[in-house]
């Protein structure tokens, strides 16, 4: 559709016309600013926690375990130089002696979710699959953050949050 629009505008005399190949789906998938109804809805991109532990393939596992010990999450995300998510290392993996580098210890290819998934849909999915956390990535694989079921309950069902201390 947009290539035809670009050609039409050129035919009408506009001389500097470009066509964005990825379109709105690519833009939303990269967690870039949008407007409209979707922008007013709680999405997991907005709710994802950015303060997750990350490392690179060549990092020694000792340092990772030390950092995870100081931080709140049970997993470390392995990224490349571009911020693309390659794998996940659980604290239990490190305690079990996996290593010596992140590349040796990681579990490759974790399931990921796009930032434009609504909090409501994601909460239903997490309940269905008994997930408590899930990584959020852009459409080209870059880590946005970690969405927690507890945070989604707070966003979608605030009345439940106070009355359900075991929910996570």
């Amino acid at each position: 559709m947009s290539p035809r629009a670009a050609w039409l505008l050129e035919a009408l005399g506009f001389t500097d016309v470009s066509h964005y190949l990825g379109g709105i789906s690519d833009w939303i998938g990269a967690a870039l600013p949008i407007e409209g109804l979707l922008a007013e809805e709680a999405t997991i991109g907005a709710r994802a926690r950015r303060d997750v532990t990350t490392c690179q393939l060549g990092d020694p596992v000792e340092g990772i375990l030390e950092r995870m010990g100081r931080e709140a999450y049970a997993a470390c995300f392995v990224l490349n130089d571009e911020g693309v998510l390659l794998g996940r290392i659980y604290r239990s993996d490190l305690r079990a002696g996996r290593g010596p580098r992140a590349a040796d210890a990681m579990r490759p290819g974790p399931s990921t979710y796009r930032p434009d998934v609504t909090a409501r849909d994601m909460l239903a999915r997490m309940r269905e699959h008994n997930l408590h956390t899930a990584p959020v990535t852009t459409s080209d694989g870059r880590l946005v953050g970690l969405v927690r079921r507890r945070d989604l309950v707070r966003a979608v069902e605030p009345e439940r949050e106070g009355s359900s201390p075991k929910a996570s």
Partner: protein
Amino acid sequence: MPKTIGREDVRRLAAAGAQIVDVLPPEEYAHAHIAGAMSLPLKELTPELARARLDPNRPIVVYCYDPT
């Protein structure tokens, strides 16, 4: 010939003052559009409307849903 560009080019052009144009139907635009984009649905894109809404002296970036 119109240029085909990627996301980073769109961000750069938008920051430089380009006109970002959503050519999807109005209901799609209402659902979600690039922040700051204007709606000019392809099916309504007459010469009169284009000339009334667009500045010929500034770059224009058009987009729809995805590459398909």
